[in-house]
């Protein structure tokens, strides 16, 4: 198996943990993994990304334009920002909830997330938009957006892992008291799909 995955969002959304879980699942399967991510000043409310490359014959952790199999986007505008990285046959799983930059609040002009989602619909054949408001309400926590999105990618078959493999990664990487909540978040999309 060989996969190039990009996770993107705004600093503080939990992209790093999601990236860690995918890496753990890959390593359990004995697959080599490389990744790169934003650390530092940009984490303070800036655009953040993780590049994740799974499989043999990978030399650089950085994914080239047009090379990503999957973009897991925690924010609509960030999905559009990184769209040039997506393969023609690639999939995007995106949260529909915008995070407005402070600059938008100051100038009194917020950006319209619908414009971003419409653009994605027009340009991405394999697109999953996750209604994150109802998902977090249903799951009962606003802190597991990352697991909900991961679950959606899993259900779409875009991750290349099984539900059980991701569950094992959660068990290995997350403290026991959060397991139930994380399982619930991971299973959410699968369940509504059925």
């Amino acid at each position, binding site marked *: 198996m060989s996969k190039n995955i990009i996770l993107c969002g*705004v*600093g503080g959304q939990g992209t790093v943990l999601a990236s860690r879980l995918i*890496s*753990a699942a*890959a*390593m359990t399967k004995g697959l*080599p*993994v*490389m*990744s*790169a*991510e934003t*650390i*530092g*000043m*940009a*984490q*303070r*409310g*800036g*655009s953040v990304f993780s590049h994740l490359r799974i499989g043999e*014959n990978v*030399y*650089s*952790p*950085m*994914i*080239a*334009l*047009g090379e990503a199999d999957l973009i897991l986007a925690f924010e609509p*505008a960030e999905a*559009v*920002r990184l*769209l*040039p990285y997506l393969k023609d046959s690639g999939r995007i799983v995106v949260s529909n909830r915008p995070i*407005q*930059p*402070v*600059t*938008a*609040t*100051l100038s*009194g002009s*917020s*950006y319209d997330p619908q*414009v*971003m989602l419409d*653009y994605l619909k027009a*340009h991405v054949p394999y697109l999953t938009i996750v209604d994150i408001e109802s998902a977090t309400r249903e799951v009962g926590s*606003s802190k597991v957006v990352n697991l909900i999105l991961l679950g959606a990618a899993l259900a779409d078959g875009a991750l290349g892992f099984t539900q059980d493999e991701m569950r094992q990664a959660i068990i290995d990487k997350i403290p026991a008291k959060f397991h139930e909540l994380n399982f619930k978040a991971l299973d959410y999309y699968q369940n509504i799909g059925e």
Partner: protein
Amino acid sequence: MHQEFLMGNEAIAMGAIAAGVDLVCGYPGTPSTEVLETVAKHRPQGTYVEWSVNEKTAMEMAGGAAYAGARSMVTMKQMGLNVAADPLMCLSYIGVKGGMVVLVADDPGPISSQTEQDTRTFAAFSKVPVFDPSTPREAYEMVQEAFVFSEKYQTPVFLRSTTRVSHGYESIEVKDPDEYAIHEIEGFIKDSSRWVIFPRLANMNHRKIEARNATLTDTLSDYPGNRIYREEISPAYPAAFPSNQPDEPTSPPNPFTVRAVATGGFSFTYCMETRERIRREAGESFRLFKVSTPFPFPEKKALKFLEGLDEVLCIEELDPVIERALTYVCGKYGLKTKILGKLTGDMPSAGENSREIVQQAIEGFLEIPYSNQEPLDLPPLPVRPPVLCAGCPHRASFYAVKKAMQGKKTLYCGDIGCYTLGNAMPLDMVDTCLCMGAGLGIAQAISHVEPDTSCFAFVGDSTFFASAIPSVVNAVYNQAEMTLIVLDNSTTAMTGHQPHPGTGQTMMGEIVSKISIEKILHGIGLKTVETVDPLDHARAVETVRRVATEKGVKAIIFRSPCIALPAARAAAGKTGPMVVDPEKCIGCKRCIREIGCPALVLATSDKEPDEAGIGQNGPDEAGVVKAVSIKAAIDPAQCTGCSLCSQICPVKAIGKGGGHV
């Protein structure tokens, strides 16, 4: 051996532990910080770890430990090496007994630094050998080799990393504890002819290190990290690529036989990706020289690489180190090979490389048609500059000074840390920012040449200890007129919450007496040192007004913990977020315009403008008049309940939301 998924910085730390490192010192700085943190986390019995007060002290400590025969490592970012330059230059001449590795993380871009300086250049300047890994796996191996090399040649050795190596992750084989290297520490042996640097010794040792480095260019030519990737190349032009001159009777020579690429550091990974991509299409690919010890440069290896080549493209970040070295080798040995790179304008002179930049450059150089993707026409995207967090006490501190000094002629000197972000609108409270601690020097100088300006220097608590204290002494003794503002959030926030002398804990896990900033300032001779909670806005403003008018050097310490610290987070959880009462809010937007908190947003409304009673924007492009609420709202997910906004609301429309949500 077992497999782990490690960040480059973690790999360096685990490699140092595997080499039996006895002492690790450093000062936090992106992208180097995680090295020391990882050593501390996995610290074997008997290994000493500390965050030193600054890089100079850390370098001197690593030198001292190595004098005694211990293995030591010192960690810093590239800017920190400037602070530690004095001891390093002298350590280069004096040498060491135990292995000493100087880990410096460079920052191409730069992504979170003030300069794009290159530690490989610093290595040549200081005459200290440098290892330059390309991946976490290589960094893990190289740090262990560097210790052995350092001991063998009795010199400190650089391990130079860059952001993408330090912050990249890779699944790698690492040693189990029973495989770690074991060594005895001989102890410091008194010998003033060896350890006391006098001009005569310096002259003698200068000759020695020049001679050593000259032989090292041969020795390092055999180092496996300096490697030529080559293969049998067919004499014909690759059939997979259409010739650029289809009408020519004879096909052009195979570019792979006469043109090649030289690289090092993280750019090696980009070159390999391009090399494999070309091989997939052409069945063969270009010769590649990977330089892992840019100083001393492996000349003999370079000569082998250059055999039969007309042109070489050098792909590296920051300084053109490999390019200059190859140009020198060509001159020295009378080769006609043309060396291309940054100096010849064939590669960008600044900034980070990327997969695309490297691929385009190599394919252009080899005259292979570059398979360019049609660029997408993306809609306008929101700009997301980094901002001070919601609830950050620095925001309140800057705002208090701004209000207190309104209408006066002022200078606000900033410094290095999260609080540099105080420059952003609407606060706009950072007029200068240069390097660690520089704000104090700049403020006191301007107080001498522009006496009618109220000069302020803002400095964080960690920066205060690291590099501000001598400048306070200077200001007091030399009669400057300035106000020192210490932004004390009880941590080194920007780099991820490292302890410092004011926090009362060490990296060895000890709880110790805090060093008091107030007492230091009083000890230096400041008469006025006031400590205020910046989140008590009225009192903070009153204090600034009063203190700023006093003569001489005076200080205000704004003390309130970083909101990202676990204790502060827990407290914020109990307080709960603030809420705006929409009945009371008059839509003046003062809270939004004045303090720029990311938790403050504009509430949108679907109601008609009149019905909502809140005004409107003009018609949009489609001619539709949309109601736009101008009432403030607070994002409960971000608000920490700091209450600064409620203190400045003219109609008291913002109040406590009441408990945890």
